[in-house]
């Protein structure tokens, strides 16, 4: 099953919602406040903190089992033009969820999309940089026994 069939043609929205969720709350607030014109928004559903039950797979690849829960905060907002957005973010930061929802709504607005897109890309770059720094540190702790190039089948 391809991702397309799962998400019903929403891979883009799926990506930006993920970027917004994985941003540090502070980064999102700073990026939001740096926007030249910030739209006003009203709550469709007030930010609310709850739990998502996190599942793993037996043996890493098998059937699901429940590992534990994580705190998640969600919000839904509406822009004056009527676009609605949702935010689901790990943790209990309500501002994070509201701003994620606001940016989601902007991304659906023809007039606001460009501005929101820049914000999302900035957050994505910050996340990528963090991830890469960790990957470089990990590589620096790799014990190298052999120097040959390993051949792996392409699948």
């Amino acid at each position: 099953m391809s991702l397309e069939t799962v998400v019903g043609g929403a891979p883009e929205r799926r990506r930006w919602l993920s970027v917004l969720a994985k941003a540090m709350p502070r980064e999102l607030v700073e990026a939001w406040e740096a926007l030249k014109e910030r739209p006003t928004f009203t709550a469709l559903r007030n930010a609310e903190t709850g739990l998502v039950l996190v599942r793993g797979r037996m043996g890493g690849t098998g059937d699901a089992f429940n590992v534990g829960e994580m705190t998640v905060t969600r919000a839904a907002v509406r822009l004056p033009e009527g676009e609605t957005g949702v935010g689901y973010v790990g943790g209990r930061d309500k501002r994070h969820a509201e701003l994620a929802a606001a940016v989601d709504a902007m991304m659906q607005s023809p007039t606001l999309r460009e501005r929101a897109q820049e914000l999302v890309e900035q957050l994505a770059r910050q996340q990528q940089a963090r991830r890469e720094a960790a990957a470089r540190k990990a590589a620096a702790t790799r014990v190298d026994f052999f120097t040959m190039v390993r051949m792996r089948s392409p699948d």
Partner: protein
Amino acid sequence: MTPSNAPERYYNYAYLDEQTKRMIRRSILKALAIPGYQVPFGSREMPVPYGWGTGGIQLTAAIIGPEDVYKCIDQGADDTTNAVSIRRFFAKVADVETTEDTGQATIIQSRHRIPEKPLKANQVMIFQVPQPEPLRGLEPRETETRAMHAYAEYGLQYVSLYESVSAYGRIATGAGYPVMIEERYLMSPSPIPKFDNPKLNDSEAVLLFGAGREKRIYAVPPHTTVRSLDFDDYPFEVQTWEQSCALCGSEDSYLDEVDLDDAGQKMFVCSDSHHCAERREAGHAGPMAGHALDQSKEPAP
């Protein structure tokens, strides 16, 4: 919009969320329909430790309403520390009136005792149960004991009582003495002294039992036959004392022994603190009663 990141002080009425209450309520109804049978339930973590009354607290939270009057006792007394702590909890989370007066209460939560004053039809008695399985001391495996209940195979329990008679000339159990409900389910009455067992039989009140850590709820409806196990030649008998209560003079209540020094001086006083206070107010006095009774009275409401 509501302020973001406002500190959250809000807990649902009676602490538990509504879904949890529904789950517990369904379990209570099944427990009443199958008297003495232990209904497994999805016990939740409570803000007091397991073993400290979480089963009783969950039962109370599932049934209590603002019109209830709540009494909580431990060892028969209203002023024992854990009873004070649980009573405060419900005063705070369920906005209920609390009382020490057994006759005034609509819900009585208890650890280890049943009040001396007979219960009434408008009362619900809730027992905190540490170990709901009467057979657990004889068989540690849940898979085994559940099968014994399923097929009413209680021979093991009788063998154990018989062994006690052989060894001591009597049945050795003084508290948590097993009972048979309607001649079908063997049940632990919770660790009440066997002195209280007769109060379970043909009770006017609904009796609910909750074991939070062991995740079991069971019940005895009013007017249900509750028989303490025994043998024809070794009949069930309750504790008696040669002494009377040192404070109120009662000769028929369960007594606590209080050591007064390390030379063997002791006095016996009622375990049921409200029963004792009520008797003293009515003018009864035991051999060691002082006269500053005002201090022991509840402040006027």
